[in-house]
């Protein structure tokens, strides 16, 4: 097996190559698809890639293929608004996402790839007292778990976001916000590429333009996958396909409680920095942050009906603009540059599904809905452990598939109106 020779990225390296004009080596290799792997991971999003990375790094399982019908990060992982936070509502959720943010914090060094983690602070606004009560609830659950999360009032919000209209004569007055200083944004593509590069360096193969067309099973066990590039056998197949998760699971005869809804996003043209925090308003269905390039990145809630269409809609930008101008009327002359859409795999309890299915060796890491990017590292770490040890790690035990039939829903529902 050919190993990719990793070359360390550094400012010095950049300088030397700038002088010598020597090219950088490839981020990951283009190799032929083999007939057999120890593990086949479907989906080269953050979940598939991080699972592969931790399989190789933490468990020495390196004969792994990550296959994707499109390109690395072509799914939700390449089209999400890259908001990270750990201030969830349920104790299981808080613990899990906190682990993920912690891994993100040191990911650049771990992967030797600058993922531009920016903990700029995360604000969830409350416009009525029901919402404010939910914010308090979240804050208190968080504090019990040691997460930095506090309800703050309009004056403090104004200090963090000077462009915010916090006056009380608006249609949706801002009564307060849940403030979560460690929350922030990250350069999502860099995370995907960084994981792919680091996994590849340890021997994992990344196969783009490789579409899974079927799952082979025998006697209740998975034996491999059928792809547009031929059959591949593997005793373990992990479904990390988010919006397409039920289509893959159906191939294995596994039913998942998931509905696919498009989620849209948009960016404006860049302007000089004026917004450092991430601002979310559940009641107004909008969230916004400003990237280092100066664009505002917007998101909202999912489209109201199930679809696999990734087309955009006009009403999305209309609603978004209306609502964001309620919050920041002064940005009325900024222009929306581009809008796009991705697919979200929504579960009944707004929580993911990680673990075993009734088909032995067919594992799922799905149900990531509108919030799964931030979970990438922790779920990859846990799924790798699960695949390598055949045991469910404690940190994800609340998120098993059986919980639906057994009536143990892990409800993030209360706080999930716009759950980024």
């Amino acid at each position: 097996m050919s190993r990719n020779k990793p070359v360390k990225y550094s400012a010095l390296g950049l300088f030397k190559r700038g002088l010598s004009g020597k090219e950088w080596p490839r981020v990951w290799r283009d190799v032929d698809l083999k007939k057999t792997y120890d593990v086949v991971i479907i989906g080269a999003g953050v979940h598939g890639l991080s699972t592969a990375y931790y399989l190789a790094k933490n468990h020495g399982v390196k004969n792994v293929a990550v296959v994707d019908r499109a390109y690395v990060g072509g799914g939700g992982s390449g089209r999400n608004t890259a908001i990270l936070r750990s201030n969830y509502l349920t104790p299981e959720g808080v613990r899990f996402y906190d682990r993920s943010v912690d891994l993100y914090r040191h990911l650049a060094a771990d992967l030797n790839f600058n993922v531009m983690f920016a903990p700029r602070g995360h604000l969830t606004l409350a416009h009525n007292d029901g919402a404010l009560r939910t914010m308090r609830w979240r804050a208190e659950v968080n504090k019990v778990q040691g997460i930095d999360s506090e309800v703050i009032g309009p004056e403090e919000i104004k200090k963090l976001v000077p462009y915010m209209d916090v006056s009380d004569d608006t249609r949706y007055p801002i009564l307060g916000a849940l403030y979560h200083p460690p929350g922030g944004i990250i350069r999502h593509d860099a995370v995907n590429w960084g994981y792919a590069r680091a996994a590849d360096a340890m021997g994992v193969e990344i196969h783009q333009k490789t579409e899974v067309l079927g799952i082979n099973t025998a006697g209740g066990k998975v034996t491999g996958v059928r792809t547009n590039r031929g059959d591949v056998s593997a005793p373990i197949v992990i479904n990390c396909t988010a919006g397409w998760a039920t289509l893959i699971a159906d191939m294995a005869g596994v039913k998942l409680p998931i509905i696919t809804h498009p989620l849209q996003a948009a960016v404006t043209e860049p302007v000089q920095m004026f917004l450092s925090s991430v601002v979310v308003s559940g009641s107004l269905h909008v969230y916004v942050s400003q990237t280092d390039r100066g664009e505002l990145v917007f998101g909202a809630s999912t489209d109201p009906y199930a679809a696999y269409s990734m087309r955009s809609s006009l009403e999305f930008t209309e609603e978004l603009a209306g609502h964001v101008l309620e919050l920041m009327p002064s940005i009325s002359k900024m222009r929306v540059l581009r809008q796009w859409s991705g697919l979200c795999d929504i579960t009944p309890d707004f929580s993911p599904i990680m673990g075993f299915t009734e088909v032995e060796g067919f594992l799922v890491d799905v149900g990531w809905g509108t919030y799964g990017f931030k979970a990438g590292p922790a779920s990859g770490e846990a799924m790798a452990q699960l695949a390598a040890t055949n045991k469910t790690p404690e940190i994800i035990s609340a998120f098993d598939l059986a919980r639906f039939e057994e009536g143990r829903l892990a409800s993030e529902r209360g706080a999930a109106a716009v759950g980024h």
Partner: protein
Amino acid sequence: MILIPCPNCGPRNSSEFTYEGENKERPNAATVTKAQWRNYLYLKNNPLGWTTETWYHSSGCKKFLVAERHTMTNEIRSTKALGQQGGAS
């Protein structure tokens, strides 16, 4: 904005409707097992392709209707009022 041909009102913007999703048969509550009931509650088809689903024309005739929609193109090839045979296309 997709256009939904309401069998009562004619073509209307989808923003006038509430999406109800796949309509599932309610199991008999007297005999149902947990597995069957939770299947009814949580497991819905999520096809890529044609799907049959219920919409509620909440800002129009206030009637529920059944539509066949393609989940990739959002094309709607038929709608019918509940309990009605044919219907608008």
